């Protein structure tokens, strides 16, 4: 009898599968008329440009990648926190200081959340900022060149995760700490975490003209984990919101111990109030040790400066500056809608989305409706600040973005989908699956007052069978959706590089009008530049040999060098004399174990070579620069340490 039931069930199940299979086929067949529609929507004809550019974080690659939308084409990988062989970034003498920290030179990083600079709450396309999570740093990339031009280390921080989000006039780029730590760092028992560790929220001012970064102040918060953040905008400009978890202040087995409280908090920080306090002499200057690395486009060189102090603020000393908004179950994403009214807490262990109201928050503050405090910071009542909840939209909410029509789009990791819902009514309007297990999503202009609700792309954590299943390591998959209609429509699959924790996207035309094509040779202030063939030369300083070398299609000057000895440290300072768009030259010498170079027109870059063998060694251009690229070569003669070969060089004639 039992067996019969079993078999029946099995057969029924199989039938169910087959039936559903047939259904899907039917729906395929009836839709042939629209066959070319989707392809046309993502087709960018040869020579045409994409309408939007997306900057997608490279996660554990430490870099930032540039993609076109809607084509999904990858245009560039911008090296930020990791050495990058393609251009020699982090290997060449000029760029090594970019990766300097108070812990020494760090060759790799974990990049997370890019955010584009804004003016009046709209994306201005000048800079993009991105955080390094592991050894806390914030980088600035210039969107006129797609080059990393500045990196500042963040002291007192650890796991720089709720970063690097900009305020609506790029007054600040903000960096919050995931790990709370002893501040100042000291040797103490881990079990004494509670009450002793602190979480630093860093407000890094951005100088308007060049974007230079400077840590204006750090708010030393209770020892929670600060997960993500977003700025207020419009009416809420001047505030910043941080999601927190582990308000339990546990230091071990957080998957259990940080999930004990029914609610954690979103911390609302009135940074304008703290700024005023600091400008009036408030705060305490404490000893610190952090690197500030700046790339100078005139000298084509980076410098690293160690800074020894930082201004810290205890929030309980600034009344009215910080409040805690109870938010269910370890919120991850903390997103603010384009109007600045709604603050969305994506409680990753909650099945509901919590939306707070900025207006109600101000009201509750005004009427002092507090529900106790945490280390002197007032806690507001959940019901008093709640605007509404989206009930059971999916499983495992992570991030929310917005369009320009009052809709929000939230990713759900566990149920692997994007859900579209309406701000104000909180009703679910549409859901589309992602392939698979989506993390972040992006809408161009999403973190601004004016998102462009045409496309949305979802960045997935799991790829599995989307491409050939050759693994174990797979590039992650992303999906592009058309969101211009009532329902989201899947358009395209494209692979992303590293792990895209976040992305920022914007209109491509804003980038195009600011693009820089070459470096002006006349403006080259590199101390070792050779700005013409005539300026090229070789200079010995003790055991250092400095070669002032120039390149132009299709030769190096000099291209014959003698008089180098074993034990010498040879500096190839290579200047690219070209002033034509897109004519870089490369440089490599046999046995070079430091850095190859790729030198842009008008630029000077340096590679150090410490020859280990006597001989005559070739060097050549590694970038196919011209019809006579294969002729672009030279020799350097290395003699024994005690030889008396004179230091000589030439171009076009023999060394006599």
């Amino acid at each position, binding site marked *: 009898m039992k067996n019969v039931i079993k078999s029946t069930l099995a057969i029924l199940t199989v039938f169910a599968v087959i039936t559903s299979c047939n259904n899907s086929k039917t*729906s395929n067949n009836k839709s042939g008329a629209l066959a070319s529609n989707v392809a046309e929507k993502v087709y960018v004809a040869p020579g045409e440009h994409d309408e939007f550019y997306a900057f997608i974080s490279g996660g554990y690659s430490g870099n930032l990648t540039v993609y076109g939308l809607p084509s999904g084409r990858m245009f560039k990988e911008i090296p930020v926190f990791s050495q990058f062989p393609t251009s020699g970034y982090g290997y060449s003498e000029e760029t090594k200081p970019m990766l300097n920290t108070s812990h020494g030179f760090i060759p790799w990083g974990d990049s997370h959340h890019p955010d584009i600079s804004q003016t009046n709450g709209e994306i201005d396309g000048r800079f993009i900022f991105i955080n390094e999570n592991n050894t806390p740093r914030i980088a600035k990339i210039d969107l006129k060149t797609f080059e990393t031009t500045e990196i500042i280390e963040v002291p007192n921080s650890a796991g720089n995760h709720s970063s690097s989000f900009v305020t609506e006039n790029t007054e600040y780029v903000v960096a919050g700490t995931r790990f709370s730590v002893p501040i100042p760092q000291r040797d103490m028992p881990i079990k004494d975490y509670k009450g002793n560790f602190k979480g630093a929220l860093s407000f890094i001012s951005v100088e308007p003209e060049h974007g230079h970064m400077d840590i204006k102040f750090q708010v030393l918060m209770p020892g929670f984990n600060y997960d993500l953040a977003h700025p207020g905008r419009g009416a809420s400009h001047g505030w910043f919101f941080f999601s927190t978890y582990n308000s339990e202040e546990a230091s071990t087995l957080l998957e259990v111990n940080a999930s004990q409280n029914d609610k954690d908090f979103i911390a609302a920080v009135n940074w304008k109030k703290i700024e005023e306090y600091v400008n009036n002499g408030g705060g305490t200057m404490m000893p610190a040790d952090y690197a500030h690395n700046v790339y100078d486009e005139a000298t084509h060189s980076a410098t690293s400066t160690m800074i020894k102090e930082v201004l810290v603020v205890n929030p309980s000393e600034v009344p009215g500056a910080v409040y805690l908004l109870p938010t269910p179950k370890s919120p991850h994403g903390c997103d603010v809608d384009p109007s600045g009214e709604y603050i969305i807490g994506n409680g990753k*262990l909650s099945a509901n989305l919590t939306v707070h109201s900025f207006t109600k928050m101000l009201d509750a503050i005004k009427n002092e409706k507090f529900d106790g405090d945490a280390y002197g910071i007032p806690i507001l009542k959940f019901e008093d600040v709640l605007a509404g909840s989206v009930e059971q939209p999916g499983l495992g909410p992570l991030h929310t973005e917005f369009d320009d029509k009052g809709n929000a789009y939230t990713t759900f990791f566990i149920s692997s989908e994007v859900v579209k819902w309406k701000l104000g009514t909180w009703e679910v309007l549409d859901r589309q699956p992602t392939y698979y297990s989506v993390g972040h999503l992006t809408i161009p202009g999403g973190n601004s007052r004016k998102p462009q609700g045409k496309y949305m792309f979802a960045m997935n*954590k799991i790829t599995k069978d989307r491409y050939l299943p050759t693994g174990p390591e797979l590039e992650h998959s992303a999906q592009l959706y058309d969101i211009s209609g009532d329902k989201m429509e899947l358009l395209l699959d494209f692979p992303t590089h590293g792990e895209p924790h976040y992305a920022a996207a914007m209109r491509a035309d804003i980038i195009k009008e600011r693009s820089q094509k070459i470096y002006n040779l006349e403006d080259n202030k590199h101390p070792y530049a050779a700005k013409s063939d005539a300026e090229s030369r070789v200079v010995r300083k003790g055991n250092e040999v400095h070669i002032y070398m120039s390149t132009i299609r299709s030769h190096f000057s000099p291209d014959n060098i003698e008089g180098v000895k074993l034990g010498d440290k040879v500096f190839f300072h290579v200047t690219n004399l070209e002033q034509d768009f897109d004519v870089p030259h490369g440089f490599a010498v046999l046995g070079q174990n430091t850095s190859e170079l790729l030198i842009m027109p008008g630029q000077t870059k340096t590679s150090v070579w410490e020859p280990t063998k006597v001989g005559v060694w070739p060097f050549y251009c590694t970038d196919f620069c011209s019809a006579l690229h294969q002729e672009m070569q030279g020799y350097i003669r290395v003699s024994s340490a005690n030889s008396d070969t004179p230091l000589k060089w030439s171009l076009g004639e023999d060394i006599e």
Partner: protein
Amino acid sequence: MKTTKTIILVFTLMAFIWSCKNDNKENASTSPTASEQESVSNEKTGQAFIEDDEGKPTVLNIAIGSKDHTTLVAAVQAASLENALVNAGPLMVFAPTNEAFAALPEGTVDNLLKPENKDALANILKYHVTPGNYSKEFLTKFKKLGQANNQYVMVEVVDGEPMIGGAKILASVKAGNGIVHVIDKVLLPPTEE
């Protein structure tokens, strides 16, 4: 012997599902259409239907492969929750046996399996899922567990064993994306939170 039968059943199922998926793919390559996308979002596509004969079975595979959980599997399918159960998780599924379902008042299961009760069924099933992965012994450390339907289930320790919402853990099977604890009762979500 019984195991062999179960395995055969699972493979048969997989074969059907997989051939179905291939059909979809062929269609996709010849005519990528707007409503093709709708078929992609059809409930029988997604992570649950990926062919993977190398990885450790997921919590869903384990449930499908168990002769004692045919009711649960039928319920999961009726509620279209397959894809949620193959996610990276981690997921801890409390899997009531067929006997546990049979112990419910007569007609309860049949009623829940009706299409119009899909949401109610999904809510009950999600009350059996915790985002987490804890062994039976470890569960004694908890007072309550936050379930996927947004409600809590209480944990009590009786004679050194964790009782989950009054249900006893009969067996535990480790999965690729979490763990399945076989329980002797169906957990019914509290009507008021």
